[in-house]
């Protein structure tokens, strides 16, 4: 059974306690966006066979949404982090790299630094 640690309450939650919420880090398209962008935001998913960032809700616990990095091919969990992160934090990237040396993030460091929340 899939077990994820909720980054808010720290509970190691089993799958039955959680509700899956699909791909994480989707950027909502504003009023200026094209039809293509809006379609991509709504429907086009990466659906990778490998490292996947996704949303989960600790539905039968603290009730909060959080994010997880997981491998869809092996079901390995690399870590969980708070939903306030616009991009996966460095420690999650390091954890993925430790197991998947060939894996490349599809966002740039500049993005991640520019949009990371003020601590």
């Amino acid at each position, binding site marked *: 059974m899939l077990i994820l640690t909720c980054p808010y309450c720290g509970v190691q939650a089993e799958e039955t306690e959680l509700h899956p919420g699909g*791909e994480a880090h989707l950027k909502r398209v504003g009023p200026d966006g094209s039809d293509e962008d809006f379609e991509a935001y709504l429907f086009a998913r990466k*659906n990778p066979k490998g490292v996947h960032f996704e949303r989960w809700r600790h539905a039968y616990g603290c009730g909060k949404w959080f994010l997880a990095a997981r491998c869809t091919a092996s079901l390995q969990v690399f870590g969980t982090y708070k939903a306030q992160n616009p991009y996966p934090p460095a420690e999650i990237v390091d954890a993925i790299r430790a197991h998947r040396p060939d894996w490349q993030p599809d966002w740039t460091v500049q993005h991640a630094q520019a949009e990371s929340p003020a601590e």
Partner: protein
Amino acid sequence: MPSDAPRSGRYSVFAIAREALRQHSGWKRAWASPEPRGRYKVIVIGAGGHGLATAYYLGRNFGITDVAVLEKGWLGGGNTGRNTTIIRSNYLQDPSAALYEKARSLYETLSQELNYNIMFSPRGLIMLAQTEHEVRGYRRTVHANNLQGVATEWIEPARVKELVPIINLDGPRYPVLGGLYQARGGTARHDAVAWGYARACSDMGMHIIQNCEVIGIETECGQVRAVNTSKGRIGCEKLAIVVAGHSSQLAEMAGFRLPIESVALQALVSEPIKPCMDVVVMANTVHGYMSQSDKGEMVIGGGTDGFNNFTQRGSWHHVEETVRALIETFPMISRLKMLRQWGGIVDMTGDRSPILSATPVGGIFVNCGWGTGGFKAIPGSGWAMAELIAKGTPGPLAAEFGLNRFREGRFIDESVAAGVAH
């Protein structure tokens, strides 16, 4: 049209008698396993039911036999061999009903057409209504089906009990309030569907190439040129991607993205028991469905996992949920031992309806998104897909299932209509 004398020999009672007299030494392989040529007019990726049916109807309806069907594993080893073999067409929306009814009607005569016994068994199918919402929903579906020319009827609980004597109508949690009955729904042998199509394709001179994984798609000026495979580069004029759970991966090779997420769907079978239920029963409120195979096993289908997954095994707690719910409706199965459990990776679209479409790359067509209900659609899907590939534009069956519907908001919303991830 396939020739009258297939290369694998025609199966008949006379063939059985002839072979009985010579120690069954004359049976030939049902399909050939050639090495790939350097180029084909059409390449179909995926030798499951949908891919093989696509190839078959390309030959049968359009005379295109310069076709290769590539399969990374073995023929019919994906979702074609992992489903619960249910065939029905009691959908609400007109485009769905047309496509699934076409498939169901082709299933009726498929054994004769392919000269291969697919064991189609139109034993009848009941979708139980166990809440007031389902009663209203299924009554509406019956009215829609009658307008669409799909023969279904609403039946009262007493008739349900007559058809399924082992059922418990009283609940208490989910009493049976009636059912949506399709008398010509049923089951078929899923492997035989793949094998029968493969044999017919091979007899038409098409190449079915197993253990041949596509690892790249070559395009030039927005037009497909070739596929790179584990058996080398193979050129093609047109390419059909018919790979269910791995559609996103193939689309990525071709440089576009699909509105698809892959999740695990699972099923299980019990030990064989004496015949006790000769209809298919679906209980969508609790999301379990059950039929009895010809071997006597109770075949049980469950729900999908909610998260992306490519492992072909589902979550354990879904098995528990499914079985727990079915035991209330069928108390006699409570002591049955379960023999096997397995999973398949299904391709779910945003509106839970399939995609039969041209793509942003010229010459590439996709047939995917059948999600949890692909087996029942195989002949109709192949029929519509062959027309799309041969003509380059969709015919009436495929017209509403294009990729553009996601941009234009023209959904075929069966997920709400069926109240179940069919």
